[in-house]
């Protein structure tokens, strides 16, 4: 993706990464509380890629079908946030969230609901924190469950142009001893990117002033 992310300089990328890091950390913290296990996070990846490339990024790594909890956000910058799991892991996640004492029937019955709730907590935490850091507020839609291949998850959003550039943030996480892993992804269109760039610049100014 080198050469594409010209719109963010290195410091801006660092700053954005830090903002996402903070958001994800909060989200991971929520997840940790929910499953009672250590949650390992990767350093967030921030890239400006085409929508198709973003889909491929996930699709390339995951051969099996995926399950995602999707939430739209609107505000100073708008876009979509997705909590993505391989389908086989989503059951594990639901079980982990619902606790070991839950029966298989209960898990099966409540899987989607549990996933939607978990996603809602994590994504809200993450985006909310980010918006907070940038001194903004975001309006979040209700969580929605999508199933299918990586490509489908990303095209589902009804973006007209697959070749359009998007800001693609993703973090993969895994939960120790639970065989749970997944991604948190955020996609924003170019106007939102421009708005975000300004907000990031403000953020940098703010935090690099002598405390």
């Amino acid at each position: 993706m080198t050469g594409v992310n010209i719109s963010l300089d290195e410091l801006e990328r660092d700053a954005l990464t830090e903002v996402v890091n903070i958001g994800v950390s909060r989200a991971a913290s929520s997840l940790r509380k929910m499953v009672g296990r250590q949650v390992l996070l990767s350093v967030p990846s921030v890239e400006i890629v085409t929508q198709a490339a973003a889909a491929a990024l996930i699709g390339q790594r995951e051969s099996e079908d995926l399950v995602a909890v999707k939430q739209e956000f609107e505000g100073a910058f708008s876009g979509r946030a997705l909590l993505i799991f391989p389908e086989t892991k989503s059951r594990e996640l639901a079980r982990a969230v619902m606790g070991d004492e839950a029966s298989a029937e209960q898990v099966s019955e409540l899987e989607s609901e549990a996933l939607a709730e978990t996603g809602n907590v994590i994504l809200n935490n993450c985006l909310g924190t980010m918006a907070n850091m940038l001194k903004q507020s975001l309006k979040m839609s209700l969580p929605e469950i999508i199933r299918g291949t990586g490509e489908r998850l990303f095209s589902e959003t009804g973006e007209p142009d697959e070749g359009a550039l998007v800001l693609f943030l993703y973090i993969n996480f895994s939960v120790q001893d639970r065989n749970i892993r997944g991604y948190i992804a955020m996609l924003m269109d170019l106007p939102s990117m421009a708005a975000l760039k300004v907000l990031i610049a403000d953020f940098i100014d703010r935090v690099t002033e002598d405390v």
Partner: protein
Amino acid sequence: MVRGVPTSRFFANIAADDQKRIRLAVAGILAGAEVFSKDYRLVKGDGTMRWVHASGKAILSQDDLPLKFIGDLVDITEQKRVQEQLRIAQSAGAIGTFEHARGFGTVTVSEQFCRLLGLHPTRILPVATVNQLVHPADRPIIEPILPEQPRPDSNIEFRITRADTGEHRWLTRRGEYVRDLSGPGLRYIGVAYDITASKLNEERLKRLNEGLSESVKERTRDRDRIWQNSRDMLAVTDQHGRILDANPAWPAILGIEFSDLVGRGMSELAWPDDAELVRGNFVDTLREGSAAFESRIKHAEGTPRWVSWTASRESETIYLYGRHVTREKEQESALREAEAQLRQSQKMEAVGQLTGGIAHDFNNMLTGIMGALDIIKRRLASGRLEGVERFMDAATASAQRAAGLTHRLLAFSRRQPLDRKPVDVRQLILDMRELLDRSLGEQVELRVQPSPDCWAAVTDANQLENALLNLAINARDAMPDGGQLSIETHNIALVAGEMPGLIIQGKQDFVAITVRDTGVGMSAEVLEKVFEPFFTTKPIGQGTGLGLSMVYGFTQQSGGGVDIKSKPAQGTAITLYLPRSPAESQIDVRRGSPVPQGAGESVLVVEDDSSVRLLVVEVLRDLGYSAIEAVNADLAIEKLRQNDHFDLMISDVGLPGMNGRQLAEVARDIHPGLKVLFITGYAANAINKNEFLADGMDMISKPFDLEQLARKIREMLAVVMNTAVIVPDS
């Protein structure tokens, strides 16, 4: 390190370039980010810079508000350098690194690792993502189960399908299971790199090897097939000729089981008569390296089989190749037999032709004799005696011709004893003129031109006459429309080699007699065969084919030769070369003088043929001799004992029981110095008269005329025998 100092102090030593970055990170931690992990440069008092790594964790309150931040600062200047080296090493060597901690579904990878797999460069990859790309039959990159104890892992090779291009590549990985630095379990740290090129080479090499071994196998199979299918006998023996291995042709040809062949010696298998030969050839093979020979081998039935062998030695081993040639041998001998039969039948055919020709001639002559005698008999019965002599002359002429024919036959078979004497060739030719004139007819112009200075030759006058007559008649036949026949002579001195077929010691004088005609001549092919016995250009029954071969035989026997020159349509010239007589012109006295008479001399005639005996006795009595007859040797000896004196004994050579020559010995025991005249018709042992005859003996050939006999007897009786005087008993 950082404890209880103002934050400004924390930032003071950070290099200017890293200031903002670190401030951002610290802000992040303060804002609730969990992990702090940054590398940055610190400027020391002396202005030098050190790379440090700061890592830490925020301690959060119940409501997730950061309470404090605990962290470590490590000098990683050295590590940075090593990392840089490692990075370069990895990218230069295209080596990807990866690290997997037990219990996690993700693996930490290097960008190079991602590039190897055709994945988007990243730091963390799901284990499934990585393993998904590996060929199902190969070991996964990330082992699902980690061992309990740290240990180095072996080198694992595996195939992958690149995520971006779908290309298939070979990778290898190696690594170690080590104690997790941060957790209780193990951690696998490994490297992976592309080995497709070397793998392809390896594959190619393997295929090449397989191809090679396949072609070796193929060739071995070919050889096996040759060994198995060959109809020739192939074997391997040791240096003593003991069979180590033999192909199936052996049992097939020899009827001996394979198990009975192995270990047997070749000389043992050979036909007993050939055992020594086989042994000798094996010795030769060992010495010379190879040998080729034919020998017989015993078949199980006990009969021989001919085999043509080729043996070659390689160190201590002898390779034997044998071709079964019994059939060829049989065919060869059958061919020889057939050839012999063919020759025999050709001989018989020739004999048939000869006898046919002779019978024809004899019948003509016999008709002449019998017819004439018949007429004479009838004239005598009726008392009409006038003109009878004409028929008697005709009968005599026929009989003489018959005598001439038998002479020719004998001359051809060289059973004819030659009566070689100095002969006046010129006179002989001149004397023949009348005979030739009669024989040749009116259409042929005869020129008889012997040179006046012609030397005398040593030869048999009768045979010479015969030969010339023969040549003249051939010449006549070659001139059906008439022509010229000339007979001429010249003296010539020849040296060795001047005339083919003529054996000459140094330089020798010859009398050359040439019979030349102006007839049809002969082609080169005919010319080549003219001297062959039975060769004739005349129709069957009209010629015996003996003419020229007889002439050839006669001149050879005379110590001379014959030369023939002829071309189609240009006539033929035949020249007889006869050796010159050292004694000049002691001319053979023949005919003309009256028949000499006897004066009562006693003559013993021993002859088994009654008609010959009758004739001889009658003639002797007519001539005035006292003749006593005996049928065989025993009776002759009886007569010899009964009578005190005999002037002459005339004996047939071929008598039943004791032959004429033996009888002569016995007779001379009884009557020493007794003169003996032999009569011979076919005397194999009388060819060379001088060896056969002792002193006081002579010979006359059948048929002879009575005048000849009378002269011979007179001649003999005229000679005074010294022996008779010397022997005291006489």
